[in-house]
């Protein structure tokens, strides 16, 4: 047995097993800090929660006459609750800041060391037994480092934003407890050095996501959304479990290093085993990253608080699928069919979600479908083997989508206050009720436009470089030439749609006349500083974040300021050690890719075409929606007919799933329960029992036939068992 006492202090300084000059600095602490935050905030939440429960109940028992009275009852309890509400403000973002600083230091160390092989740090032997030896180990390499930077960096900003956003919520400490726990599991997910450790994080982030979606559980519908996310993710988890299972059966290990080292020699290129493994991995990835067919949960997940949507459902957790494919790049390189499936699913999802986003009125729903669509782009990238491009877009998307969500949060916050002040029961998230907000929320307006231009792919914002790089890579000729030409076309269309629906969102929200109402308009206000400062930082990142991975030819052209950018293809080079094996396999099997668009043209030409197209669409949309007279939600209601209705109802996918999956499963469970418990037992009870009522319980026990039924089935089973054995 490994002495448990060993892990506590020394483990944090466990010496790296491999690695060149890279000497990680307390990497364990990066994971432990959020966990610590969770424990502290969790205890505070329980203290606050049990007190609040009592207050609510005593309030209910006292039967207050009005809503105000109940609120007053709550506020009386505010004084003792103060500690449970002030501490999380410091603990929650504090641990994140600590983790971010540590990550940055490690990042700089790794940058300086020229690390090639991943550094694996083993803490203790988790499953030491039998043929499967799994260590509780983390792996630090270029991929996990980038992910950690995004998680702790963007995570820290969102934590700070949350202080302003959630301050007045009675569940404030609980919120930070969940958020810290989420970050911990997310870090486990990206740093785990083997599949089981990754799976711990994978399940953990799912659990936290479920808890945070259902955060406002008093609202039945919102709690149900959490359940939906949970169930859909189970399907994905099953895929991941199966993949791990086949991996173990094939390799006898689940460590990344060993599997990826052995894969090129053990597995046959394009063979059944590797295809099965990668397809199951893909199923897992589609669940977590909300791709077709498992995307239905993400829009519903918007029921959670908006910063949660920013952190979990835009920047980090939903990119786990992309991370997974990039991590297993060797396997996907060996399975061209699966890789094509990844790219195809990505393209389909991107286009599909973009069409739905065209017709949504809920500002968060637009962003949710936009997220699904952008995740589709990332899938396309990793599907065609451009892993670095996928991670690049993952990173820039984390910046501008977090910014968009937080900005939307600020808008909703403001709208909510305004509507609350006059007791208007309008939907604070429906864009038809907004309009003209730029006059009230100047900074938010500016920042969100930056993010919009970034996601639309307009030069020189981050999205231009990352998204167009993906489109560029998709237009390659191998391994399924014509298919990739189609995908390329879909990607271009999706990019145009993205520009359109984002511009629509901005115009409906910030421009035109204010539709909130005369009295309400006076209460609209800019968000506090704790909310606008994180927005500003994210806006800067949305502008400059794309400059780290500009190809040399582009850098030398107009788009790179004719060589003025400080670096070229930095991320590609940074990621090279991670993707080298996959690239080598592809080079060997398919030869060098001819990177060119299906319709000709070079990097620079397409740069002009892409940004021009995006700009044109944005302008067209702006012009179209500005001149349009938008009715409010109450006036208009849901679209009643036409194609718009289909889009508004999200292609009726939820209804379809309900018909073909949910109802049959519920039916089967009820059926077997009825057959086993009801018909067979109670049925005989009732039938026979009616004849012989009132003969005492002992007699009735025999005459009702319950036991007879049991014994009968037992005897049947016995006969079957003996039959199998003897014959």
């Amino acid at each position, binding site marked *: 047995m490994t002495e448990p006492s060993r892990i506590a202090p020394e483990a944090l300084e466990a010496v790296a097993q491999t690695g060149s000059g890279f000497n990680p600095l307390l990497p364990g602490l990066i994971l432990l800090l959020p966990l610590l935050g969770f424990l502290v905030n969790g205890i505070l939440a329980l203290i606050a929660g049990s007190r609040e429960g009592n207050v609510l109940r005593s309030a209910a028992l006292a039967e207050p006459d009005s809503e105000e009275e109940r609120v007053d009852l709550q506020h009386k309890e505010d004084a003792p609750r103060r500690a449970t509400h002030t501490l999380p403000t410091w603990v929650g973002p504090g641990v994140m800041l600590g983790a971010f600083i540590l990550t940055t230091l490690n990042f700089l160390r790794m940058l300086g060391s020229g690390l090639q092989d991943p550094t694996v740090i083993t803490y203790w032997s988790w499953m030491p037994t039998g043929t499967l030896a799994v260590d509780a180990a983390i792996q630090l390499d270029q991929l996990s480092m980038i992910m950690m930077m995004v998680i702790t960096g963007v995570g820290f900003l969102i934590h700070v934003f949350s202080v302003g956003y959630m301050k007045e919520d009675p569940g404030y400490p609980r919120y930070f407890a969940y958020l810290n726990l989420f970050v911990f599991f997310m870090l486990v997910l990206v740093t785990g050095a083997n599949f089981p450790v990754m799976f711990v994080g994978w399940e953990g982030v799912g659990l936290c996501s479920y808890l945070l979606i259902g955060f406002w559980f008093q609202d039945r519908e919102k709690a149900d959304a959490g359940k939906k996310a949970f169930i859909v993710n189970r399907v994905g988890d099953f895929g991941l479990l199966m993949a791990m299972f086949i991996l173990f059966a094939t390799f006898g290990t689940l460590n990344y290093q060993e599997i990826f080292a052995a894969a090129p020699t053990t597995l046959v290129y394009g063979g059944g085993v590797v295809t099965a493994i990668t397809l199951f991995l893909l199923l897992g990835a589609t669940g977590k990253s909300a791709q077709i067919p498992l995307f239905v949960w993400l829009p519903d997940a918007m029921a959670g608080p908006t910063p949660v949507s920013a952190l979990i459902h835009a920047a980090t957790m939903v990119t786990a699928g992309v991370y997974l494919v990039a991590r297993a790049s060797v396997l996907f390189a060996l399975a061209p069919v699966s890789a094509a499936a990844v790219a195809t699913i990505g393209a389909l999802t991107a286009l599909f979600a973009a069409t739905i986003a065209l017709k949504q009125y809920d500002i968060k729903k637009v962003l949710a479908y936009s997220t699904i669509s952008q995740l589709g782009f990332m899938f396309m990238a990793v599907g065609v083997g451009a892993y670095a491009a996928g991670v690049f877009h993952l990173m820039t998307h984390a910046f501008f989508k977090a910014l968009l969500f937080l900005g939307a949060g600020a808008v909703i916050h403001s709208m909510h206050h305004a509507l609350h002040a006059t007791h208007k029961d309008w939907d604070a998230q429906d864009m038809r009720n907004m309009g003209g907000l730029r006059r009230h929320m100047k900074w938010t307006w500016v920042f969100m436009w930056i993010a919009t231009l970034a996601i639309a792919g307009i030069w020189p914002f981050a999205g231009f470089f990352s998204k167009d790089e993906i489109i560029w890579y998709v237009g390659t000729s191998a391994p399924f030439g014509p298919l990739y030409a189609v995908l390329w076309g879909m990607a271009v269309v999706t990019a145009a749609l993205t520009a359109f629906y984002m511009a629509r969102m901005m115009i409906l929200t910030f421009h035109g006349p204010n539709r909130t109402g005369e009295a309400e308009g006076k209460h609209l206000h800019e968000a506090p500083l704790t909310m606008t400062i994180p927005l500003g930082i994210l806006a800067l990142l949305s502008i400059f974040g794309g400059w780290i991975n500009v190809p040399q030819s582009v850098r030398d052209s107009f788009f790179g300021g004719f060589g003025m950018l400080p670096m070229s293809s930095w991320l590609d080079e940074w990621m090279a050690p991670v993707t080298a094996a996959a690239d080598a396999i592809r080079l060997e099997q398919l030869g060098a890719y001819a990177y060119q668009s299906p319709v000709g043209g070079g990097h620079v030409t397409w740069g002009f075409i892409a940004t021009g197209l995006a700009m044109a669409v944005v302008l067209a949309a702006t012009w179209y929606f500005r001149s349009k007279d938008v009715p409010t939600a109450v006036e208009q209601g849901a679209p009643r007919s036409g194609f718009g209705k289909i889009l508004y109802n999200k292609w009726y996918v939820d209804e379809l799933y309900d018909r073909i999956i949910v109802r049959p499963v519920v039916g089967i469970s009820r059926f077997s329960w009825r057959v086993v418990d009801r018909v067979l037992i109670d049925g005989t009870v009732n039938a026979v029992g009616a004849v012989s009522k009132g*003969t*005492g319980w*002992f*007699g009735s026990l025999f005459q009702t036939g319950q036991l007879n039924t049991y014994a009968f089935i037992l005897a049947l089973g016995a006969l079957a068992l003996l039959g199998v054995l003897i014959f």
Partner: protein
Amino acid sequence: MSSAYLPVLMLFGVSVLNAVGMVVASQVLNPRRATPEKDMPYESGMIPLGDTRARFSVKFYMVAISFIIFDLEAIFLIPWAVEMRALGWGGFVAVSIFMMVLVVGFVYEWKKGGLDWE
């Protein structure tokens, strides 16, 4: 077949003949004068009609259970008593342990009031 079993066979035959003979003899010899009491099926002095599940006082069961346990004790003790010398001290210790356990049960029953009729 060993002839040692012959006496057993003879005993078996005699008992069968005896039983059959008594029934047959009583059928042949007795006078038949029917009365309502005589026509009733004989059921150990109980009235034979009514619910088959007549309720007995639980006290009877208590006695019956106690009887079974001490009955089994006798079955256990007699073979040991017969072969006591051959079984030696080991057998004695084993039976003593058995008796001790039984005594515990007995004390329990006594304290619980299992031996009180009222």
